[in-house]
């Protein structure tokens, strides 16, 4: 097995595949060369301020920004006037949640979200709690999806906002946005969705889903880092207070000079994503199916985290029982992946998302997130699968837990000393 893996690696190296192989597309994506090309003039000759109205430098920069606004809006069925450019999804999430809360907070002060939301949504909400808001952090089903009945039951006459993401960054599950949006309309509650992992990857229509606010990031769709957008519905109008004050750019919701280069790149990335969404989806499905089958055909006790069907297939989060996550990452260092357990971020706590799914803490420690994207090849995925199979075998041979389970010992029967 080791030899096979090595010869595969040599083959990939000889065809100029770069190592480690990048399989962390949820964290960020490589910039598309076409996008980069679009950006370059705005770093050099077209250096105008898009908010300068008195000369051609400003006008050409403004054209670039407005063109990008159209491209981003089109992808979610929005009006360009509903797109506010920001520095990324973290800012958009903060602007949406805090901005709405500050505008309407004296009337309604209850917000509902999921325990599996992105850290920046949860953190923004914690912050609002300190300011007197009450927040419901709903649990999810074992497959990572929201329970719509529970969601509806948790709505009160004080509920201002429901914030639920489209695609989960850790486990890839797709929440039922249309049904959530319908609930929000029915109960006259605003609907914010962090669609950073979904935008440009799966079809999303803000009107069909009744979304009032949606957070978007460029670098998840082969665009540049440092730029994103917030969709803010105009009909019926959704009001938010800005996070900071200034020149009143972006309809007063986000002051500060935009970066035409970043915004133009973002627009181009959105345009490309729109034109090849199905192709991209078919591609990751092919990779997912191949990888998942090969891994589960060759290894026992491997568990997929998150629903198999309601899922963006560029994400495959697996628990490899009895092999610890951080040691897996070290063992498969030819692959750039992320640990489902947050051990690598030195907190030593297993992922709160997996815990919210009810994954045993023992199993949560063994999880790895593989992310496939537009530039991932079948050869890379094939190599990745063989490497994982070989190294999980090695780590399980090294694992006292694996040995005990083979001997028929129930690990739960042992009185472990927590440390």
């Amino acid at each position: 097995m080791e030899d096979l893996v090595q010869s595969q690696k040599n083959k990939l190296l000889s065809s100029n595949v770069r190592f480690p192989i990048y399989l962390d597309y949820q964290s960020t994506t490589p910039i598309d060369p076409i996008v980069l090309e679009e950006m370059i003039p705005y770093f050099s000759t077209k250096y105008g301020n898009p908010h300068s109205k008195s000369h051609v430098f400003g006008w050409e920069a403004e054209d670039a920004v407005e063109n990008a606004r159209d491209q981003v809006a089109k992808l979610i069925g929005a009006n360009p006037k509903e797109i506010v450019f920001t520095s990324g999804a973290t800012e958009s999430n903060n602007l949406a949640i805090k901005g709405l809360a500050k505008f309407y907070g004296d009337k309604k002060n209850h917000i509902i979200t999921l325990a599996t939301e992105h850290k920046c949504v949860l953190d923004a909400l914690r912050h609002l709690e300190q300011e007197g808001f009450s927040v419901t952090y709903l649990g999810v089903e074992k497959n990572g999806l929201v329970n719509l009945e529970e969601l509806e039951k948790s709505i009160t006459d004080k509920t201002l906002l429901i914030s639920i993401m489209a695609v989960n960054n850790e486990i890839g599950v797709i929440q039922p946005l249309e049904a959530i949006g319908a609930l929000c309309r029915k109960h006259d509650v605003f609907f914010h969705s962090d669609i950073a992992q979904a935008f440009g990857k799966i079809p999303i229509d803000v009107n069909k889903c009744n979304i009032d606010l949606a957070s978007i990031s460029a670098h998840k769709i082969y665009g540049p880092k440092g730029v994103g957008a917030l969709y803010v519905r105009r009909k019926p109008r959704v009001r938010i207070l800005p996070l900071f004050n200034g020149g009143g750019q972006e309809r007063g919701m986000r002051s500060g000079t935009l970066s035409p280069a970043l915004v133009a790149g973002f627009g181009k990335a959105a345009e490309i994503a729109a034109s090849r969404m199905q192709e991209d989806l078919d591609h990751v499905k092919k990779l997912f199916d191949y990888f998942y089958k090969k891994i589960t055909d060759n290894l026992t006790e491997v568990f997929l985290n998150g629903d198999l069907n309601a899922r963006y297939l560029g994400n495959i989060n697996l628990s490899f029982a009895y092999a610890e996550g951080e040691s897996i990452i070290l063992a498969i260092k030819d692959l750039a992946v992320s640990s489902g357990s947050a051990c690598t971020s030195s907190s030593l706590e297993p992922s709160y998302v997996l815990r919210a799914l009810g994954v045993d803490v023992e199993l949560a420690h063994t999880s790895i997130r593989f992310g496939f994207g537009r530039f991932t090849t079948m050869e890379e995925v094939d190599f990745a699968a063989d490497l994982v199979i070989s190294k999980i075998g090695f780590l399980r041979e090294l694992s006292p837990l694996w040995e005990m389970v083979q001997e028929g010992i129930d690990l739960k029967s042992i009185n472990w000393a927590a440390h």
Partner: protein
Amino acid sequence: MTYHNNIIDHYENPRNVGSMDKLDPNVGTGLVGAPACGDVVKLQIKVENGVIVEAKFKTFGCGSAIASSSLVTEWIKGKNIEEASAIKNQEIAKYLALPPVKLHCSMLAEDAIKAAIADYKEKQSK
């Protein structure tokens, strides 16, 4: 996180991986840690005339935990029980240049030695 070469060396080529017969009266077994905490070390020693003649380990845990256990199996082999019990986690951490967040791995390895010796002594006293 970047790892010191000594960790990589022990992680990629772990020494003395394996198991001995835990029912053998000359074998002491230490099992420390907890799956829920993300690391478990099983360390076994075989003692003849008060000297550790064989040491084997298996570890579920991060690279630092695996390297710490591998390292101590090398260190304790050939030592008598008293010498082995005197090994301190600080020495392990220093040799592997463990970062602060990984110090518990060296403590686990020290605990594993002590647990294996305690198990051996208990068997002998019966």
